[in-house]
C-alpha cells in the first residue's frame, strides 16, 4: 500500500490524533475548572489571604515569559539579521502568540472579575502600577505578533514594513516581560523578589524556556526525524541553536546561583529562610535544578548537543524545570508569613488544588491546540525562498507502508 508522508508530520494523521487528544484534555480541564469556579468560586483554590498568588499565576508567568522568549528569538533573524534563524522564525512568532493567549486565558480564570478588567483598566489609567503597564504592553505585544505573523504569512520576510513591525514587536516584548518582572522585582516588602535585575533574569529565563519549547515542538513537527527537515533547519539545529540553548541554560544557572548565594548569605529571614527552608528543602526544586537545568547544560556543552535525541531530552527536562522554577519563584516570595504573628508559626504551606492544576492543564492544552492548528494550516516551517531546500522541503514523500 502506498501512503503519502508529509514533510510536516503534524499535517498528516499524527496531527489530527494529537489535536483530538489535546482538545479532549482542554475540554475536560476547562469543564472541570469552570464548574468548580462557578459553583465554589476561589474556595476551590488552595491560595489564601496569606498566600494569594499560587500555581495559576506561576503558569501565567511561565507562558508569558515563554512567549516573550520566543518573540526575542524570532527577532534574531527578523530584526538583527541572523539569517540562519529564518527556518524557525515563523514558528517562533506563532508559538509566541499561542503561549501568550494561553497564559492570558489562565490568568483570566484566576482573576476575581475578568470582564470588569476590560473597562476599569482603560478608564482608570493607573500609570503607577507595573501591572497596568504589563497589561498594556502584552496587549501591544499580541497585536504586533499577529501583525508580524501576517507579514510572514504573506511572504514578506525582508520588506521595510516587516522590519519595522519586527522592531516594534521586539521593543514590545522587552517592555512587556520587563514590566512583568517589575511586578515582582519592585516589591521591597517581599525581599525574595526585590531585585532591580529582575527584568534581565526574566529575559534570560524566558529565552531558555522558549528554546526548550521550540526545540521540542519543531522536532515534533517533523515527526522526530531529521530526514524530513529542510537542510537550513538541520544546519540550524546542529549549529547555533543548541549553542544558544546551552548559553541560555548557563546564564539561567548563573542567575539562580547568584540569587541563591546572596539569599543564603543574607541574614534577612524573608530571603534566607526561603532559600534554606523552602527551596532547598524541596526535592522537586532540587531535582528541577540538577536534573532539569544542570544536567542538560553539561550535556549540551559537549559534542552530544547536536544529537537530536539529546536535544529533545534536554528540551523536555528544561521545560519541566522552568515550570517548576516559576512555581517556586512565585510561591517563594510569599511563604514567609507577612505580619501574622504566631497565628502562623511556620512557613505557609501551599499545594495546588485540583482546580489550580486544571488551570495549568488548560494552559498547556490550549497552547498545544493552537500550535497544532498552526502547523496544520499555516505552514509554520516556511522560510524565505532562497533558504528552502527545494529537493526535500515542499513535495510530499512517497513511501510504502
Amino acid at each position, binding site marked *: 500500500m502506498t501512503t503519502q508522508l508529509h514533510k510536516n508530520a503534524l499535517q498528516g494523521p499524527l496531527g489530527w490524533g494529537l489535536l483530538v487528544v489535546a482538545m479532549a484534555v482542554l475540554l475536560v480541564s476547562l469543564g472541570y475548572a469552570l464548574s468548580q469556579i462557578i459553583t465554589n*468560586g*476561589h*474556595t476551590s*483554590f*488552595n*491560595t*489564601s*489571604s*496569606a498566600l*494569594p*498568588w499560587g500555581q495559576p499565576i506561576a503558569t501565567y508567568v511561565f507562558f508569558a515569559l515563554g512567549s516573550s522568549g520566543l518573540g526575542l528569538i524570532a527577532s534574531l533573524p527578523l530584526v538583527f539579521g541572523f539569517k540562519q534563524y529564518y527556518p524557525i522564525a515563523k514558528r517562533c512568532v506563532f508559538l509566541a502568540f499561542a503561549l501568550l493567549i494561553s497564559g492570558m486565558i489562565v490568568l483570566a480564570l484566576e*482573576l*476575581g*472579575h*475578568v470582564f*470588569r*478588567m476590560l473597562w*476599569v*483598566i482603560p478608564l*482608570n489609567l*493607573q500609570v*503607577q*502600577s*507595573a*501591572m*497596568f503597564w504589563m*497589561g498594556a504592553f502584552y496587549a501591544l505585544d499580541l497585536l504586533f505578533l499577529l501583525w508580524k505573523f501576517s507579514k510572514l504569512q504573506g511572504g514578506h520576510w525582508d520588506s521595510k514594513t516587516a522590519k519595522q513591525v519586527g522592531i516594534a514587536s521586539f521593543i514590545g516584548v522587552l517592555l512587556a516581560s520587563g514590566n512583568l518582572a517589575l*511586578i515582582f522585582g519592585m*516589591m*521591597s*516588602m*517581599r525581599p525574595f523578589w526585590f531585585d532591580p535585575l529582575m527584568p534581565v533574569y526574566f529575559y534570560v529565563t524566558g529565552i531558555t524556556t522558549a528554546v526548550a519549547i521550540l526545540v521540542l515542538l519543531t522536532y515534533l513537527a517533523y515527526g522526530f526525524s531529521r530526514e524530513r527537515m529542510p537542510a537550513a533547519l538541520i544546519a540550524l539545529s546542529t549549529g547555533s541553536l543548541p549553542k544558544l540553548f546551552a548559553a541560555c541554560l548557563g546564564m539561567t544557572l548563573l542567575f539562580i546561583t547568584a540569587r541563591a548565594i546572596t539569599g543564603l548569605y543574607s541574614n534577612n*529571614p*524573608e530571603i534566607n*529562610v526561603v532559600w534554606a*527552608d523552602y527551596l532547598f528543602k524541596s526535592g522537586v526544586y532540587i531535582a528541577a535544578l540538577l536534573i532539569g537545568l544542570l544536567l542538560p547544560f553539561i550535556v549540551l556543552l559537549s559534542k552530544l548537543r547536536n544529537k537530536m535525541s539529546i536535544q529533545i531530552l534536554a528540551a523536555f527536562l528544561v521545560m519541566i524545570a522552568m515550570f517548576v522554577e516559576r512555581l517556586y519563584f512565585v510561591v517563594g*516570595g*510569599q511563604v*514567609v*508569613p*507577612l*505580619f*501574622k*504573628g*504566631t*497565628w502562623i*508559626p*511556620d*512557613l505557609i504551606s501551599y499545594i495546588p488544588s485540583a482546580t489550580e492544576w486544571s488551570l495549568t492543564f488548560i494552559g498547556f492544552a490550549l497552547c498545544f491546540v493552537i500550535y497544532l492548528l498552526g502547523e496544520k494550516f499555516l505552514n509554520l516551517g516556511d522560510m524565505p525562498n532562497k533558504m528552502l531546500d527545494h529537493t526535500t522541503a515542499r513535495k510530499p514523500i512517497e513511501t510504502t507502508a
Partner: protein
Amino acid sequence: MAKWGMVIDLDKCTGCQACTTACSMENNTLPGETWQDVLFYNAGEYPSGQMKWLPRPCMQCENPSCVHVCPTRATYKDPDAGGIVFVDWNKCIGCKYCMIACPYGVRFYADEKPLIEPDIRDVFPGENAQLWSPPYQSPDEDWRRGIGIQPKGVVSKCTFCYHKVKNAPEGIADLDEDNPDVKEYVPACVRTCAPKARYFGDLDNPESHVNQLIGDKHGVRLKDHTGNKPQVYYLGAGAGVPAFTPADRENDA
C-alpha cells in the same frame, strides 16, 4: 479636612481581642477575615523570653504601596475622607496585587477556603450579590468605599469604620468614646477597647490628643523602613516586631 489617625498604647493593651470581635460584628467579616486582629509573638528564650502582642488594624498609610500597585485605581486613598484607604468593590478585579504589596498583611480575599467548618457562607448563602448574607447586617453599605458585605472576587480591608467616622462634626480634634457627643462616630475597635488603649483623632490638628500622645510618649510607626508612613502609631514597649523564625529553628536564635 481631617487626617484620621489611630494611636495604640501597648502598655495598656491586654490582648483581649475585644477590638477584633467588635470589628468583626460591626463590619460583618468572615472568620479569618480579620480587618482588625491582635498578633501574638513569642520572642527570645528563657530566662528572658517574652510574649508580645500587637493590635493590628489597616495602617491607612500616608504613602500606601497598595494604592500604587492597583491597576484599576480600585484601591485609593481619599484625602476628603480623612486619608483613609478604601477599596472600590465596583472596580476591584481581584488580581490580589495589593495583598502582595501591603507590608502589613491587612488585606483579605474572602473568597477562599473557610477558616472553620461549617462554612458560614453555606449557612447564610449570599443574596443580592453579597458573598454571604447573615441575618444581622450593618445598615451601612457603600461599595465604592468597601463598606458592607463584599461581593465575590474582591479584596476587603479595614475602613477605620468610615461609615461611623464620616458623621463626626467638622473640625473635631478627637473622637473619644468617653465623649457622649461623639461616641457614635468612634471606630468600633476604639469604642470597645476596655483598657482604653486606643485613641482616634485628627493628625492634622495640632490640638488633638492623638498628636499630644505621639509627641509626648514617643509614638512609633510599624515597619517604618518601608516608607509607607502609617497613620497608626504605637506607644509603649513592644512595638518592635520580632523577625520571622520558623518554629523548628526557634532554639537556634
